[in-house]
């Protein structure tokens, strides 16, 4: 039997507001426990939530960028359940009329094909606090700093057909919310996380199979592994004559498996109703138009422009447009040099490698775009070879100054003077009479040996083209 996998993702993006969605408490990550939890966040009697304008505008930004409808009128609802990190006993969310609905994004698959993924809705809600279960004499510790942090929950259509597609979609949303500057995208800190609804059905069948929901996946790798595990589990159940139970499961990354959450008999009995503390939110045409005018260049627009403006391949353009900062850096380099492809290779190659090795983002690169461009100009004008450039780059990374200063201080200037190169060749030939004899009696491949000896003698500084030309003349002469 061939099985078709059906996946929909619910992505929670913490919005980058300074204050909470319904209170004036700060949202900064990593503060001392409960120092950013005010009376509203603590659910004290008599307090009233007041909606943060910026959270609404951020939701609208996402809606416009994802080709969605921005609802002119939306409603907040109470989602009722009891848990200690939810002091009010309900989460303020949106149910029947979300702020954003019916959109789509295009994702690029591994084979380069483009697939359209529907966005059912995106709604505003508040995050809950955090429960710490270890080390409190059998009790749980509750930190409510996160309670009330604005979330945008982005719900996809069940359009994804494999774990790889789900990851590609998650990566696109990650890239998009960062481009829009509405979420920092830090998955380790939980700023962006997702639940995956997974089911399988025989290929060709129209009806969906019974789905399981895997909660709280906070890395691309875990999304892929959790979905693959879950798909295998469901297929095994069905093929051995059983049936999948609709349930909520947790992914255990240490064991690489999903398992059911306990105490779910009242699951999905949230008794939503409109929150009487909050009035309907109206977003007028003028506000939407204003926000549309402020939208930045979007990832797919930037990618297309890098192809048309700089002649890059679609693949290179997609890597360089991974983040706005990366694309800005590349453009700052490329605008200063002649060969755009070389600029792209350096940004994607040595620079990205060094950033990864040191675990820093491109914003914190010790080599600025201007400095890198300065070095590439020295390759273009023949001062240094591409090979020497690698050691110049390493020195720049280590803070030894500009390319020109390093070339000067280390005496790395390329030797192009033919007299000087001839003298070196003369010496190499004199030092290696045996190899010279063999070469002249027809062993052509020794040519590479002589090139190597000359480059070694000049510490790699001889102009390679010049070496090749002169060596050929002198070997044959």
């Amino acid at each position: 039997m061939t099985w078709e996998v059906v996946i929909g993702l619910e992505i929670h993006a913490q919005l980058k507001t300074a204050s909470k969605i319904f209170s004036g408490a700060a949202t900064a990550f990593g503060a001392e426990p409960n120092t950013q939890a005010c009376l509203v966040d603590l659910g004290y009697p008599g307090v009233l939530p007041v909606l943060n304008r910026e959270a609404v505008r951020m939701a609208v930004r996402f809606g416009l960028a994802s080709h969605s409808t921005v609802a002119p009128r939306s409603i907040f609802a109470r989602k009722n359940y009891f848990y200690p990190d939810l002091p009010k006993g309900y989460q303020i969310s949106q149910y029947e009329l979300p702020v954003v609905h019916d959109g789509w994004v295009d994702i690029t698959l591994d084979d380069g094909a483009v697939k359209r993924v529907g966005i059912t809705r995106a709604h505003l809600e508040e995050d809950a606090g955090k429960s710490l279960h270890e080390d409190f004499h059998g009790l749980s510790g509750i930190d409510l700093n996160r309670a009330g942090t604005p979330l945008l929950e982005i719900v996809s259509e069940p359009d994804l057909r494999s774990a790889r597609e789900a990851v590609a979609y998650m990566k696109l949303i990650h890239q998009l919310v960062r481009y829009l500057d509405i979420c920092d995208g830090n998955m380790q800190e939980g700023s962006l996380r997702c639940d995956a609804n997974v089911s399988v059905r025989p290929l060709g069948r129209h009806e969906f199979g019974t789905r399981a929901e895997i909660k709280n996946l906070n890395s691309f790798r875990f999304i892929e592994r959790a979905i693959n595990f879950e798909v295998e589990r469901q297929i095994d159940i069905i093929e051995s004559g059983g049936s999948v139970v609709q349930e909520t499961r947790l992914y255990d990354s240490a064991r690489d498996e999903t398992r059911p959450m306990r105490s779910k008999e009242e699951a999905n009995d949230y008794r939503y109703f409109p929150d009487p503390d909050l009035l309907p939110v109206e977003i007028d045409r003028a506000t939407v138009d204003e926000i549309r005018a402020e939208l930045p260049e979007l990832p797919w627009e930037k990618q297309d422009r890098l192809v048309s403006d700089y002649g890059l391949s679609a693949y290179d353009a997609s890597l360089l447009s991974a983040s706005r900062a990366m694309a800005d850096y590349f453009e700052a380099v490329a605008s200063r040099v002649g060969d755009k492809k070389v600029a792209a290779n350096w940004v994607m190659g040595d620079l990205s490698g060094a950033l990864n090795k040191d675990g820093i983002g491109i914003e914190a690169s010790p080599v600025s775009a201007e400095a890198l461009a300065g070095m590439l100009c020295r390759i273009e004008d023949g001062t240094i070879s591409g090979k020497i450039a690698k050691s110049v780059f390493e020195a720049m990374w280590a803070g030894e100054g500009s390319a020109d200063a390093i070339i000067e201080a280390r005496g790395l200037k390329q030797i192009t003077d033919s007299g000087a190169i001839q003298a070196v060749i003369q010496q190499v030939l004199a030092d290696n009479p045996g190899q010279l004899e063999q070469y002249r009696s027809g062993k052509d491949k020794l040519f590479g040996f002589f090139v190597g000896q000359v480059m070694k003698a000049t510490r790699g500084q001889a102009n390679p083209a010049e070496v090749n030309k002169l060596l050929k003349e002198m070997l044959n002469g």
Partner: protein
Amino acid sequence: MALTRHEVENIAHLARLRISADEVPGYVESLSRIIDFVAQLDDAETDKVEPMAHPLHMTQPLRVDAVTEENQRELFQTNASRTERGLYLVPKVIE
């Protein structure tokens, strides 16, 4: 519409209300009467009426995104039965 005994028990559980077995019939009776009372609305013609989310004909005012609250943890935690290292301590609940 009469509620069942099971429904009443479930509602109590969702609301974390403890009611004894001999109280249940009384709740079945009185809650069913409340539902019957509200069910009169089923007779109203509502096809052309937009559902109402709020009785006030107003829209939600929005606040400027600014931090206006200071840390008052010490004050708030005087109200808590137990705290440690800044955390509120509660009976263990774990999924």
